[in-house]
């Protein structure tokens, strides 16, 4: 296990009760028996979580974007006055934003990630042209679409691991970025 680079709880002075607990001879045994090092962690767990969170952020941002977009045609159909439509649209979007604020980190990263990931996974096909990976990549592309539609995070990240695509960024860089 990698050591935690962040400091532990150093702000807290231990009470006598806590010191008594820590001094108990059973404590080192419990550390060894129950500690995180006693658990076999799945290979690439952190990488898979990173990918999964990107998928989920993309899906969340996409849902927000869809709802924002849905405000556009409704007032135009219902009202003939462009000014009135604008006001209603602004009020509607403002109201919706108030009750459904989009976290700043999503608005900055997720749409870019969603588009980039989709393009990059699709773009791996030419890199593997003629190989047995073609069909798998097609299936994976469907998986990505499903992910953006809310399929299981584990399924998608597991697919990326199974298809050896966790290093897709380096593969694409090695290709000189011509695919983009």
């Amino acid at each position: 296990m990698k050591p935690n680079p962040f400091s532990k709880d150093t702000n807290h002075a231990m009470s006598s009760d806590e010191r008594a607990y820590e001094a108990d001879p059973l404590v080192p045994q419990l550390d060894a028996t129950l500690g995180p090092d006693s658990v076999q962690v799945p290979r690439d767990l952190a990488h898979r979580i990173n990918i999964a969170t990107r998928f989920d952020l993309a899906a969340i941002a996409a849902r927000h974007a869809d709802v924002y977009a849905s405000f556009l045609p409704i007032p135009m159909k219902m009202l003939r006055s462009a000014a009135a439509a604008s006001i209603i649209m602004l009020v509607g979007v403002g109201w919706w934003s108030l009750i459904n604020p989009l976290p700043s980190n999503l608005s900055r990263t997720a749409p870019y990630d969603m588009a980039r990931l989709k393009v990059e996974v699709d773009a791996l096909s030419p890199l593997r042209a003629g190989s047995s990976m073609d069909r798998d990549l097609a299936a994976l592309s469907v998986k990505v679409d499903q992910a953006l539609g809310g399929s299981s995070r584990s399924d998608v990240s597991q697919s990326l691991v199974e298809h050896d695509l966790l290093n897709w960024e380096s593969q694409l860089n090695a290709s000189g970025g011509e695919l983009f």
Partner: protein
Amino acid sequence: MEPPKAEGNLQQTLKLAAAGDPEAWRELIDAYSTRVFALVLRQCGDRDLAEEIAQATFVQVVSNLSKYKELGKFEPWLFRIAMNQLRDEMRRRKRQAQPTDLSQGRSDSDEDAPIWDGNDHRTPGDGRSQDPLAQASRVEEAQLLKLAVAELGEADRQVLYLRHTAGLSFAQIAQSLGEPLGTVLARGHRALAKLRKTLTDRGLQ
């Protein structure tokens, strides 16, 4: 962009991650994913579910990171999210969370093995891991200790997992559970006393 210098600076890393910095976010995942996974696995005994809950936990964290104000309580917040995610999933599945049940063959499961086999973290020269008989004895002691932990009440067991698997201090455990420090400490001491009695009854102490 330069990678963030996060050594000992959780607050700065959290700010960067909340602003959408992928390197900072990756640092947080690297630092905490193993402990989150281990904590959930200890409580549910299901590796697939533990990974799913770990992923869901980090999704919830990143979705709310911009609203989170670091006041030295990130770890209690993180592990509380993980426990809530597990509880909600268990409710959704309409069944009770199963503690790690070593009496039903779980001693053969891979998560119980590494520390006592080739991944032994003791140094070769410490004289302990070189004696097969002594090592076998320690394996047996560890299994009996896990059995004794599994027999504790849920509240006591949860404190032990948060303390020894998640690595929280008692103050952080109290924050995470939303209970007074004294209550949490009392549970810790009670758990140790029960463990000692169980091990003594079985001739180990």
